[in-house]
C-alpha cells in the first residue's frame, strides 16, 4: 500500500512536460491524483517516472469564447462545480460533477485527469461526449484537437500518443432554456456509477423537441451515444410514452459484464436512467412549460 520507487519530476510548462514524456520510458502524468495515486498505492501501475503537472502554469481556467466554454485540463472539479459560467452555460456539467466522488476528491481531481484516465463509468467523459466536446492535446510536435467521439481508443485508453498530454477541453454550449438531465445509479453516493445517463433537449416553442442528445456511461467501455433514442425523440412532444419508447432503444447497446453487474442488467439500467434523464431534461426546458 505504498507507491513503488520512481523518479519524480515537477515541470513548470507544458513544453517541458511533453519533453519529459518523450525522453522517459514508462512515465505517468500525475494530475489531481485521485485515480493515479490509489493505483500507485496498490501498485497496479509501476512507472519509472512520475511527472507531476500540478505546478505547470496556464492549465487552470474556465472561460467563454466564441459561444463555447473552454476549460483547462488542470481545472479542479470543485472549481467547475462552483463556477457561475458553467452553471449558466452548461448546467449539465455541474449536475454531473455533483456525482463525481466527494468534496475531498473534487478539491484535487481535475477535468483533464478524468478524461485521460477514462473510466467507463466516469461522469466527466460522459458529459463531454454528450456535449460533443473537443479535447486539446499537446505533444513534442505541437497541438492537435480530438473530437470526444474519437477520443476513447478502447477501455480506459485515450487515443493520444505516449508523449502527448491533454491540455484543455472546449465544450459547445446549448441554447438558453435548453433542458438537461443527468441521472446515475450507484451503490452509494460518490461511488462510480453502474450506469449513468446524460440527456440534453432543445425544445422549440409549442413543446416540440428540436434536437436531442442521449448518452450513457458505464454500459460500454466508453460513453455511448444513443443515436436511435435521439432520432426517436426528435419531433416528439415529450409525452411519457415517447420517452419510454426512446429509452427502450438503449436496451440493445453492447454492454460490459463484470463483478458488479451482468450485461442484461446494465442494458436494463440504461433504459431506466435514460428515461429518467429525459423526463428531467424535458421538465427543465423553458419551452416545455
Amino acid at each position, binding site marked *: 500500500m505504498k507507491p513503488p520507487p520512481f523518479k*519524480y519530476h515537477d515541470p513548470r510548462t507544458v513544453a517541458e512536460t511533453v519533453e519529459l514524456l518523450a525522453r522517459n520510458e514508462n512515465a505517468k502524468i500525475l494530475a489531481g491524483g485521485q485515480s493515479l*495515486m490509489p493505483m500507485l498505492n496498490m501498485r497496479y501501475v509501476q512507472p519509472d517516472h512520475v511527472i507531476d503537472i500540478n505546478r505547470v502554469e496556464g492549465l487552470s481556467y474556465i472561460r467563454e469564447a466564441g459561444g463555447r466554454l473552454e476549460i483547462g485540463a488542470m481545472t479542479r472539479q470543485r472549481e467547475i462545480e462552483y463556477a457561475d459560467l458553467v452553471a449558466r452555460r452548461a448546467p449539465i456539467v455541474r449536475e454531473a460533477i455533483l456525482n463525481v466522488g466527494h468534496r*475531498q476528491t473534487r478539491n484535487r481531481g481535475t477535468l483533464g485527469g478524468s478524461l485521460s484516465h477514462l473510466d467507463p463509468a466516469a461522469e466527466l467523459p460522459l458529459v463531454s461526449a454528450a456535449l460533443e466536446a473537443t479535447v486539446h492535446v499537446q505533444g513534442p510536435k505541437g497541438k492537435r484537437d480530438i473530437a470526444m467521439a474519437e477520443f476513447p481508443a478502447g477501455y480506459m485508453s485515450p487515443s493520444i500518443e505516449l508523449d502527448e498530454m491533454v491540455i484543455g477541453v472546449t465544450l459547445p454550449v446549448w441554447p438558453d432554456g435548453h433542458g438537461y438531465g443527468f441521472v446515475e445509479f450507484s451503490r452509494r453516493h460518490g461511488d462510480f456509477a453502474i450506469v449513468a445517463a446524460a440527456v440534453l433537449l432543445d425544445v422549440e416553442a409549442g413543446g416540440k423537441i428540436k434536437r436531442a442528445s442521449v448518452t450513457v456511461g458505464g454500459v460500454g467501455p466508453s460513453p455511448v451515444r444513443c443515436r436511435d433514442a435521439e432520432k426517436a425523440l426528435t419531433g416528439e412532444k415529450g409525452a411519457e410514452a415517447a420517452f419510454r419508447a426512446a429509452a427502450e432503444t438503449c436496451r440493445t447497446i453492447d454492454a460490459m459484464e463484470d463483478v458488479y453487474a451482468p450485461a442484461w442488467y446494465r442494458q436494463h439500467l440504461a433504459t431506466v436512467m435514460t428515461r429518467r434523464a429525459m423526463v428531467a431534461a424535458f421538465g427543465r426546458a423553458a419551452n416545455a412549460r
Partner: protein
Amino acid sequence: MKDMRKVSVTVNGKSYAREVETRLLLSDFIRHELELTGTHVGCEHGVCGACTILLEGRTARSCLMLAVQVDGANITTVEGIAPSEKELHPLQQAFMDNHGLQCGYCTPGMLTTLIEFLQDNPDPTEHEVRVAISGNLCRCTGYQGIVDAALDAAKRLQGGKRA
C-alpha cells in the same frame, strides 16, 4: 538510488523542513516525519476518508498526495483545529455532546471534512450532511451521532457569528 527531495511546509502554523523520498505519501509524512499522529490512515486508496487534512483550507485525502507536492503549502491537521489546549472547536464539542464518535478512528477525517463543509454550507439539511460525509467511513456510530453533531455544530457556529 533513492529519489530524495527537500520539503518545507507549514502545519498548524508551525514550519517544518525535511528531506524525504519522493514516493513518500503525505499521510506517512505527517505521521512519521512530523509525528502528528492525529491524522489516521485507514485504507490508503482514498476510500475511507480517515486521512483527510485541510490543504490551504480545502480538504484533501493525504494518502492520495505525495509529501513533495506540499512543498511551500499550508496544512491544517486535526491537531490544529481547536483554538487552544484547553478549549475544543465548536464542532469537536458537538461531536462530544452528540456521541459523534466511539473508537475515534474516523474522527479526524470527519472533523476536517465537516469544517470545510460547514464553511461551504453553514445551514445544511440532514441530507446534505449525509452526502458531505459519504466519503468518510465510520464503523461504530451508524453515522446518526455524527449527523446530529454536524447539525448541532452548524447551529453553534452560526450562533457564534451572530454574537
